[in-house]
């Protein structure tokens, strides 16, 4: 439609475009600029070129943080997708009871990360928590998962899986609505058992949904911060220092604006790479559903 006057569209879009530019696009440029300086917010900034990036990369710390974040994300994505799909298949049934179980699983997605992180810290507590009590009862002694560098990160991933499985389940349930009942019945008449029906009818039709869940969960877990800040503060021995927490540490604990900005730029580039993947998947999906 033709606007009544040429300035109308811009007046309507103005506030949105201005706010989005100032708070989402401009900051990326500012971060790139600040990353070239050494600045502690107290003394004047000093131009250092790419020294911040070099210092971050020097001892392999940057690579370790990136790989750790990726490892955590892979664990979370694999866990939420397996459980989410399993629960969707299991609970895609009429009746109040199944509705209640669906709501229970999804409720964890709605509750605050703070509540979930604190609750699981208490459950995993080695001294007087539920897991601590269980391991002592089994004669395994006091086990502190969050205090063990080997187990802390997988433990955080388990907590995230508990929180996010409801999301995957809901999206898979929506995807299952697109699997025609008649097709499953026809396959059953042809003698296909439950597994064959799942493998050859449900799974191919659900593939686009699965890739959607995978990419959105990957982006979400790549941005993980709350679990780390609340449950481990990046420890023990940096075992749970994920990307966003590393940025937070640089600016608020080390007061190093330059390093924090350099990390932000790298983080954004990695996110763009994931988003590129996402876009390809969505295109494929749009093509498939047409």
């Amino acid at each position, binding site marked *: 439609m033709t606007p009544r006057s040429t300035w109308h569209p811009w007046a309507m879009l103005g506030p949105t475009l201005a706010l989005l530019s100032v708070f*989402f696009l401009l900051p990326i440029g500012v971060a790139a600029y600040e990353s070239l300086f050494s600045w502690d917010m107290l003394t004047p900034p000093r131009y250092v070129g790419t020294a911040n990036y070099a210092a971050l990369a020097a001892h392999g710390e940057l690579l370790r943080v990136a790989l750790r974040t990726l490892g955590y994300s892979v664990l979370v994505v694999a866990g939420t997708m397996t459980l989410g799909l399993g629960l969707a298949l299991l609970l895609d049934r009429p009746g109040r009871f199944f509705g209640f*179980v669906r709501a229970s699983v999804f409720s964890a997605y709605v509750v605050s990360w703070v509540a979930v992180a604190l609750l699981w810290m208490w459950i995993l507590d080695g001294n007087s928590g539920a897991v601590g009590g269980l391991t002592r009862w089994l004669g395994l002694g006091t086990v502190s998962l969050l205090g063990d560098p080997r187990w802390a990160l997988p433990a955080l991933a388990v907590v995230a899986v508990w929180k996010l499985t409801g999301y995957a389940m809901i999206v898979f349930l929506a995807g299952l609505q697109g699997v025609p009942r008649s097709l499953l019945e026809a396959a059953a008449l042809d003698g296909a058992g439950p597994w064959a029906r799942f493998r050859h009818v449900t799974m191919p039709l659900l593939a686009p949904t699965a890739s959607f869940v995978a990419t959105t969960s990957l982006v979400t877990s790549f941005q993980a911060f709350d679990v780390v800040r609340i449950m481990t503060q990046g420890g023990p021995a940096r075992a749970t220092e994920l990307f966003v927490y590393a940025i937070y540490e640089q600016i608020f604990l080390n007061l190093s604006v330059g390093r924090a900005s350099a990390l932000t730029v790298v983080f954004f580039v990695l996110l763009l790479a994931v988003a590129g993947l996402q876009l390809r998947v969505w295109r494929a999906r749009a093509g498939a559903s047409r």
Partner: protein
Amino acid sequence: MRESKSRHAVILALACVAAVAWLLPYAWMVATSFKTLPEIVAHPGAPLPEHVDTGAYREVFATLPVARYMGITAFMAGTIAFAQIALALPAGYALAKLRFVGRGFAFGTVLACLLVPAQATFVPVFLLFAKAHVVNTMTALVLPFAASALGTFLVRQALVSVPDEMIEAARMDGAGELTIVYRVLAPMLKPTLVSLFLVSFVFHYNDYFWPLVMTTDDHVRTLPLGVALLREQGTGVRWHIVMAGNVVLSLPVLALFAMAQKHLVRAVSARS
């Protein structure tokens, strides 16, 4: 397809396991919140408190200004959700219905912002706010989220399917553009807008990250920050108090979820 009896029993059993896996942690949280510290130390794994003790809740309300924190949090989340819808409606209308030079560019800008999370912007935005002396104010909490790229996008998608004739008819009747947006189109989009409002409200009510990095004192502290602080302060962790704080924090969201489950579920599955 009828399921055999044994198969149905297996399905029921698995569903029960799922229910336990997701409900038992909540039960543990509530049970702990009614215990006393000596009891937790003496019988760590006891499933139920010996007798219901509300001391932990009294302690939470004594150490935290719960009502003030909850008020700040609800005001912040409500303002953000309201502003996002108020701004997304005209912006979505312009993108969906008006033809003008630069529309592709404007839409592209909105889509690009979908790719940028707050975790990638907080360093520069914090520096900006520090320079403007708005750290520790409601402005720092609300302004960055007053416009939502996702909200704008979803409103635009919903408006594309509204026939042009409706808008033309409203124009013939002498309605101004803002009247069309807020009085004619908004009521038609009610389900979308309700979902948007709820999802945004719940997200920002729960949010820990942004209030954490944008506040350094108690002035506009939100409830999630206050509850997280329960664990950090004092010597030793008094888990019954932390769990009582957790119950206080989660109860409003779970109540809202119970009332508006359909909206929240639809909002999440509609994005796929």
